[in-house]
Every structure is written in C-alpha cells, then in structure tokens.
C-alpha cells in the first residue's frame, strides 16, 4: 500500500511534464488530461485513506523510501515519504479541492489561449504541494516548499502581459525568499544540531539541544511560515497575488499553499512545544495578522482583495491556534480544512461573479446580482455563513474551538488572545456581510467596462457551478462532521497530541459570546451597507479606512524601511567599493606594474650581465647552503 504514495505525486507531475513539454499537439486535450490526472491523484488518496481507516490510530503512518538522494557520509538526504493522519488530511484537501478547481478552470479559462500551460502549472503545483506534505524529512519538504513557491510565482504572473501581474509575481517571489531563507537556516541548524533532517529523529531528540538552539530553529521555522502563509511581517504579497486568475487565488492563495505555514508549525510541534518563547512569538504573529487581515478586508472594494484580507486573517487564526501547543494544533488543522472548503467556495463564487460581469472586481459596481446568478448566490451565501461562524455551519465549529483554546491559554495572555479572537470574529462578520450586501443585494450599480460593453450578468456554466456546489456542501457540513463525537480530534491526536483546554469561562459562555459578536458585526454592516445605498465612488473615509485601503501602509512601510534603507546601504557599499576596495586593488595593481617595469630593466640583453646574474646566483646558492649547515 505504501508504494502508492509516490504515485500520488507522480500523477500530477506526469501531467505537468506532459502539458509543459508536450507542445501545441496537446492544446485540445490538455485541460482534460490535467484534470484527469488530478482526479487520479485524488482517487489514490481516497484509496489510501480507506486503507488507513482500516488500521488502529497509532499504526496508521506509512513510510516509503524511494531512493537515496544525496548520500555523502553523514549527510544523508533521501527521497522518502511519510503518510500519517496529518499528511492524509492535507492530501485529501489538496487533491480534492484541487480536482474541483481543475474542473472549474475548464470553464473559467475556456477562452484563454494558454489554457494548456495553465493546467500544466496547476498540475505542477499539486505535485509540489503533495511533495511538501508527504516528505519525511525537512530537506525534501524544502524541495516541495520551493516548488509551490515556483508554481505560485508562475500562476500569479500567468497573465504576464499585464505589468501589474508581472510585478505581483515578482513581489510574491521576493517576499517569499525571505521566508525561504528562514526555512533553509532552520534546516541547517537542525543538521548541525541533530545530524539529520528526518522528521522522526529531529522531533524525538528536541530535548537534547539547548533551549537557545531550539528557540532559534523555531523562530526560523516561523519566519518561513510567515512568508508562505502571508503573516505579518511578510504579509504584503498576498493582496497583490490576486492578480492571478481566480482559480489560482482559490486553490493556492486560499485553500492550500498559504496554509503550508500552519502545516510546518504543526508538523514541527515538538520543536515549538520545547520552546515557550518561540510559541509566544507564534501566537503574537497569529493575533496581529488576524486583526491586520480583518481590518484590511473591511476597507477593500476589490472583491478578491477583500477575500485575500480575509484569508490572511483566517490563517492568523490557525497560526494562533498552532502557537497554543497541543490544545490548539488539532483545531488549527480543523479550521484549515473547513477554511479550505468555504474560502475556495467564496473565491470560486467571486470568480463566477467576475465571469458574469466582464471581469469587474470593484464591488461598488456590483449590486443586486442574486436574481441573475442564483446558484452563485446560494453557494456564496453558504460560504459566507460558514466563514462568519453561523451556528451549525463548518466555520462555527472550528472557529469556536480556536476561541475557546485562546481563552484556555490562561492568565493575562489567555484573556488578551480571547479578546483578539472575538474581535476578529466580529470583524469577520462585518466585512463578509459587507461583501455579501454590496455584491448580491441593493441596487444595480453596473458600469460599462473600458470598451463600453454593458455587463450582462448571467449564471456560469455547469463546469463552474458544480465545483461551487460541492464546496458549498463542505462549507455546510464538514465542521459538524468533524465535531461529531470529536472525530477529528481523535483522528489527528496520534500525530499532533491533544490536550483539552480549560478556559476560565465556560465553553457555553464562549459560544454565546461568539454568537453575540457575530450578530454585532452583521448588524453594523447591515446598517452601513444594507440600509443605505452604496455610493459608486468610494467616500473619502476616515483615517483608518484610508490606511486600511492602502493595506495599513504595509507597502509604504516596506518602501521606506527596506527599499530606501537598502538603497542607502548599497550606495554606501558602492562608495566603499569605489574608494577603499578599488583603491586598494588599483593601488596594488599599480605597484606591481611599477615593480614589473623596474625589474624588466634587469633584462638588458647583454649576455655578460646574464652571466653575472648566474654567477651571483650560484654564489648565493652555495653560501646559503653552507650557512644552512652552519646554523
């Protein structure tokens, strides 16, 4: 059975190879081929899942050693896989949602000339992401990590003819480099400390390393997670990444790749458990991002950017939960999965709306679309209810547990974290209600596009609506299913450990509070956007609103501190290079040149001078030899 693991990756990898190297001959069947191979990978995943369920909890992990990759004495890097419950969860999410989005893209990208290439990139992404979650050592994980980064870069910049898309791709790549550097440093530290990269030995021997080293590794892993999962301070790329085609935003920048940071932290749980300092930083990053993303989401008029802010915020929840340790890991992953369903659904819904509205993204130019796009409206609506945590739907179950765990952290920290998560829940309810109202309710505010075409909103084709419907089912039922009998907790417990948190206030009170803040958020949004007509041009807004529209000045900050600082640094280095380094180099060269000029005069062409030189040389030779013997 473990031999199937490699096939999971091989199927989409084959697709990527065929589609990217196959040339025009595959143009007509490329999308079908890509989708089928993604589906094949999903089927293999399901088979493995069924097999896994047949074994008891502690016996479920499978290992496959494919071959030795870089065997150099004590440096042993293997291509080897590990499929345990955590990886299994990701495999099903990646291949399942991935397949749906492949199907959706068939319709969405129908008129794009480069559709074959698009599917090739999607398959490449699936292969890399599966490699990331199936690797049994950090080095191979790093390989997958860079692979998804590459796929993300290629897909954000897929419409590279738009300068904004090309720039966004570059930005994502560069910001991610910072995080990747963290991961590579963490791996190097692991190797020097433990002498291996494999998960098992590293995670079992965390006790042997000094606490400083462990904290260092933890912080570097966190840096990596921040890059990939768009957490503060490396959050700035995610909003721009929405330049990519919408299915990409749904798959990579909502459901799967951006959650890789959560996977990394959960997978490395033993390291963080051993370092409370690192955990504290993780929690702070999660909490700050949670609010940061939510505030940005409240101010954006671009539907995809509003959703991107929301993604950032929801991943903030997950990171925060993962930072809580064994009381949070399970819920981080659970929220990750439910979020995968409803956020992918929301993005696909947004894509469907754009598809019907001449690719317009400004929500102020939507309005009243529920009549024209009933399926989109219902599926989007269910996703909306799920994300705000409407009782009974998926998001409710997972988010509520995170809020409980945050309170259960205990002490002042617990109260602060609890309050932040509650505030986040209110903000979520606010900005999502705002999106909902501006898009599907109110009057039509449609505007002709640049070429003067009036939008004619219509429902999207079946290939697009069916994936949305499937995801809507997940948005509604997944959370309840997972919570039934604590099934998800029991499923993951053997891998991630689990402790019941004990919040200072009762669970029922937490739930009540959550529902109350939820209603407040919805209510405020309704008052602002439901009761009054929405102006087509955005009002000037308060200082906070204006800052939030500029992503809370993240780019301004980066520009002033990093770009300007970098420019100053390089300029001063250039100055030093020109004056000091070049001075030394040119001075040395000049002095050798001068020496050379003087020495060549010895070569005067007279045989008698040469003979004298030889004679003198011999005399010195003899004298020195005798002297050596004398001393």
């Amino acid at each position, binding site marked *: 059975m473990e031999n199937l693991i490699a096939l999971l990756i091989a199927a989409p990898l084959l697709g990527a190879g065929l589609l990217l190297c196959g040339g025009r001959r595959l143009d007509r069947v490329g999308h079908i081929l890509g989708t089928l191979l993604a589906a094949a990978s999903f089927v293999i995943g399901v088979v493995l899942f069924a097999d896994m369920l047949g074994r008891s909890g502690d016996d479920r992990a499978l290992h496959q050693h494919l071959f030795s990759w870089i065997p150099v004495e004590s440096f042993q890097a293997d291509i080897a896989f590990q499929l345990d419950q955590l990886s299994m969860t990701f495999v099903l999410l990646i291949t399942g949602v991935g397949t749906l989005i492949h199907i959706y893209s068939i319709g969405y990208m129908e008129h794009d000339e480069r559709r074959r290439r698009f599917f090739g990139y999607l398959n490449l992404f699936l292969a890399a992401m599966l490699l990331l979650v199936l690797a049994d050592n950090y080095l191979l994980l790093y390989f997958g990590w860079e692979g998804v980064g590459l796929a993300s870069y290629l897909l954000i910049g897929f419409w590279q003819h738009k300068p904004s898309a090309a720039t966004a791709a570059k930005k994502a790549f560069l910001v991610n480099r910072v995080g990747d550097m963290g991961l590579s440093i963490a791996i190097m530290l692991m190797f020097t400390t433990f002498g291996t990269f494999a998960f098992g030995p590293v995670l079992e021997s965390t006790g042997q390393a000094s606490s400083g080293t462990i904290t260092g590794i933890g912080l570097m892993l966190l840096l990596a997670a921040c890059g990939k999962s768009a957490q503060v301070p490396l959050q700035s790329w995610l909003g721009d990444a929405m330049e990519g085609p919408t299915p990409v935003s749904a798959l990579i920048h909502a459901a799967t790749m951006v959650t890789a940071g959560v996977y990394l932290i959960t997978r490395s749980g033993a390291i963080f458990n051993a370092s409370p300092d690192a955990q504290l930083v993780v929690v702070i990053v999660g909490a700050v991002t949670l609010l940061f993303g939510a505030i940005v989401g409240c101010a954006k008029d671009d539907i995809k950017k509003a959703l991107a802010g929301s993604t950032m915020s929801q991943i903030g929840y997950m990171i925060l939960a993962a930072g809580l340790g064994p009381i949070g890991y399970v819920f981080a992953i659970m929220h990750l999965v439910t979020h995968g369903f409803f956020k992918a659904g929301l993005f696909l819904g947004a894509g469907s709306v754009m598809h019907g509205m001449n690719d317009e993204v400004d929500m102020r130019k939507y309005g009243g679309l529920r009549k024209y796009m009933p399926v989109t409206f219902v599926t989007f609506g269910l996703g909306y209810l799920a994300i705000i945590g409407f009782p009974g739907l998926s998001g409710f179950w997972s988010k509520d547990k995170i809020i409980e765990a945050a309170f259960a952290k205990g002490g002042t920290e617990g109260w602060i974290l609890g309050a932040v998560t509650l505030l986040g829940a209110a903000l979520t309810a606010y900005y999502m209600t705002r999106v909902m109202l501006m898009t599907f309710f109110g009057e039509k505010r449609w505007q002709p596009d640049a070429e003067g075409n009036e939008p004619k909103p219509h429902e999207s084709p079946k290939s697009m609506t069916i994936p949305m419907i499937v995801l809507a089912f997940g948005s509604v039922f997944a959370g309840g299913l997972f919570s039934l009998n604590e099934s998800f907790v029991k499923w993951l417990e053997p891998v991630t450990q689990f402790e019941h948190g004990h919040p200072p206030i009762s669970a029922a009170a937490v739930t009540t509070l959550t529902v109350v803040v939820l209603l407040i958020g919805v209510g405020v949004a309704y008052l602002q956007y439901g009761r009054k007509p929405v102006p087509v041009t955005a009002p000037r807004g308060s200082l906070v609103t204006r800052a939030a529209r500029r992503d809370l000045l993240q780019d301004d900050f980066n520009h002033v501190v990093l770009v300007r600082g970098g420019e100053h640094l390089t300029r001063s280095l250039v100055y030093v290079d020109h004056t000091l380094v070049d001075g030394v180099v040119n001075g040395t*060269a000049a002095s*050798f*040149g001068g*020496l*050379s*000029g003087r*020495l*060549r005069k*010895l*070569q005067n*062409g007279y*045989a008698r*001078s*040469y*003979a004298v*030189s*030889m*004679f*003198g*040389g*011999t005399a*010195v*030779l*003899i004298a*020195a*030899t*005798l002297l*050596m*013997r004398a001393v």
Partner: protein
Amino acid sequence: MSVTAVHSLWTTTAAEGIDKIQAPKIEYAQLAPVLIVLGAAVVGILLEAFVPRKGRYYAQLFLSVVALAAAFAAVVALAAGGYGSTKAHLAAMGAIAVDGPALFLQGVILLTSVVAVFTFAERRLDPVSHGARIDSFAAEGASVPGSEGEKAAVKAGFTTTEVFPIMMFAVAGMLVFPAANDLLTLFIALEVFSLPLYLLCALARRKRLMSQEAAVKYFLLGAFSSAFLLFGVALLYGYAGSVSYARIAAVVDGSVGTVDPVLADTMGNDALLLIGGAMILMGLLFKVGAVPFHMWTPDVYQGAPTPVTGFMAAATKVAAFGALLRLLYVVLPGLRWDFRPVMFGVAILTMLFGAVVAITQTDIKRLLAYSSIAHAGFILAGVIAMSDDGISSVLFYLAAYSFVTVGAFAVVTLVRDAGGEATHLSKWAGLGRRSPLVAAVFAVFLLAFAGIPLTSGFSGKFAVFKAAADGGAGALVVVGVISSAIAAFFYIRVIVLMFFSEPKADGPTVAVPSPLTMATIGVGVAVTLVLGLAPQYFLDLASQAGVFVR
C-alpha cells in the same frame, strides 16, 4: 734488458692480465626508446647526404614521426611490461634508470615531440616563394644574413631539412636526461640535447640576426652553466669516490665506510658535498629557467623560430625537471634539510619574478617566456614537497603544461603580417572578432596557463600545491596562489585584448595552416580539456609512476 726479458714482460702481462676489460652489459630492449630516436637521427643525417633535395622533406618528416611513434610504442611496451613499477631497475651498468618517472617523462617528451615535429614541418603559413613551399627555418643556415649567398639560396628554394635529425638528437638527449643515473651520463645527456637546441635556435628564416643572437646567448650561458654543473660533478666525485647516484646516496647516508685511498683526504667532506650539490642544482635550475638563472629564457624564446621555442619550452622543461627530481629524491634525500630552504627561496623568487615581470611585456613570445618562468616556480613547489605526492604531481603538471605550451606557440605561428609572425601584443587586438576560432583556442590555452578550473592547468596546479601544502610548504603555496593571481592578470589581459578591443585596420592576418599545425593545436586543446575535465585517470597514472628506482 734482453729481448727475452722484454718479451717475457710482454707475455706475462698479456697472460696474467692486470684486469680483463669486461664488455658492458647493455639491455638493448630497455633502452629501445633512446636507441630508436638516436638511430633515426643518424639515418636522418644520411638521408641529407643521399636523398635528392626534393624528397628530403617528406623522407625526414616520415622518418621522424615514425621513429618518435616507435619510440613511444617502446615506452608503452616497457611500461606495460612492468618496468615502470615491479621490474624497475638500472640498465646499462647502472647508468640509466628504467623506472616509473623515467618512462612517464619519456612518454611525455615523445608525444610532445611528435606534435612539435608537426609544427617544424608546417609549410603553408607563408606563400610559395620561387616555386618552393617554405617553413620557419632559414633557407641555408650557413649563409650570412642579408648576403648574396642567402638570396641565392632563397631563390633556389632551399630549405633546412637538417632540422629534423637535429631535433632527433635533442630528443634522444632529453630521453636520457631524466633517466640518467650517474652524474656523467647526466652531463652527457645535457650536452647531447643542448647543442642541437643551440643550433635550432639560430635557424630562423626571418629576423635571422635576432635568431643568431639568441642562439649565441643561449650557447654562451648554457656553456657557462654546464661548466658549473661539471665542476659540481667533480666535487661530488671527490666527496663520494663515485659518480653513481646510488653510491653517492649511500655515502651521504653513511652506509659506505670503505674509503678509496686515493681520495682519503676528501671523501666524506661535507663541504664538497654541499658545494658540489649546489652547483649541480644550479645547472639544472638553469635548464628549467628558475630565477636567478632564467635570464636567457626571454631572449632565446623570442629569438628562436617559434616551432623551436614551443618544442624547447615544453620538452626541455620536462627533461630538466625529471633530472632535478631524480637528483633530489635519489641522490640527495639525506640532505633535504640542507637544500630545502635554498630551494624554497628559488621557488618563491621564480614564481613572483616570472609573474611580475610578465605584466609589462608587450611581445607575446616574451610574455609566454616569463609565463614559463612562473610555471617553473610552481613546479618547483611540487618538487620541494619531497614526498611521493610531490613526484606524481610534478609528473602530471609537466604532462599538462607541455601540451599547452606546444599548442600555444603553434597558435603564435599562425598570426602573421608582412614581416612574418606578428608577435607584438598590439597587433593581437581584436583578433577574436576577425578569427574567433583561433582566438578562442588561444584563450583556452591562456586559461590553462592561468590555472582556471576545467582546464589541465587547474588540475596540475591543484596537484602541486596540494602536495606542497601536505609536505609542509604552506608558505610556498601562499606565494604560489598570489603569483597565480598576478599571472592571471596578464593572461586575461590578452583575452580581453583579443575579444574586447577594436581590430586594427592594418592588423595581422591569421594564416590557414596545414593539417599538421591543426593537429598540434587540436591535440593541445584536447589534452588541456581532458586533463581539466577528467584528470583522475592521469593523476592515478602519474601516482603509479611516481616511484624512483634506487
């Protein structure tokens, strides 16, 4: 005294015999490489006498190439027969060693000579004059430059085909030189290969006065250094009572106690040993071109016909370093602590001086001459290691260096203007634009000289520096690396000049050579790249060959 008495004295002497002269035992098979080449040289002289002028060139070329190939085959056969390792021994009554280093270096000398013969035989570079194809050598060596006799010889289309047998004699001497196992053989081999070289240097077709001046300087200084060497031989004989390497080494070790009564006053006198050793060293250092005995090098390299320069620069160095290795490792190992500091100084001076002075050279042949001085310094670093790795690294370096050198000088013969070869560097500007292939090939050789990875120069330099560092000569390696950095400047400068300068309007043309020179250059490039990309096999070969028979 009566007649009978006289008769009796006669007969008694004859009957009793003071000592019957024993016929020396000569292992002809093991000396075959030398004998084949010497035989070819003698036959070549006869060809000059008996073959009509028209056919001489082809006959000589054929004879030389066949003889060199046959001699190389003999070397390979000897090596395959185990004479390089298990069966290594001293042939010809102990005068000549047949062992790994000797066979390896003889192989290198023979292969280098084959490609050098090709450049000797090149006759397509100059246009046909007076109905005859002409090569790099004077029409008639004996005629005074600029005289009527010379003009007549040129008009008659004469060529000096004697260069082939002369070269064969030189090759034979070089084959013996690294194998010589007593001091007299060493000296004779030195003269056997030096005299033909002096002659060859004087035979340039163009710039004859310069060529003759070079030859005279080379001869004078060579004779001067030979005198030192010979004096050193005498002193060592006085010290050890023998010229045999083994015997001298034994006396140095103190394992021989019996004193020859005639030499009782001097034997075992260390002053003789040290002074004599230093003088012989000086003679060898002169041949390899080490500072301060290097001064002939630039003048001779520049003045000699370029094919001769290439041959001499490559093969002489191989032979002389072979002899130097044998002297230091077989005769004087007991004295390593006496000679090492001096050799240290010589190596450092040689590396730095060669690299520094090359910076300001404006003539490509002089530039390569100074480059060869710097390389002599690098090789000395390997010699000084005084370890098995030292021997094998020097062997490898010599093999790598000789092919690069012959190839580089072959390229120099191609770049010509109205006055023959255009050796002034300014003429080389923009060559890469006009003749990208030739410039690229030359660039490969320059990179190899500079020791850039993926060329044989890097493998060789790495090997000698590693051996030197392991042998405790770390300081030498530091100086070596600094010198390499300085040297890289002038090599790269030529590349920059060729590829990044505007070509001059009246610049030289690149002659299209015959397949002979192409073969020389092609072999040079191939060896450079093979030894750079996959040196392991040859390093192994060198390290298997790196054991001297004692």
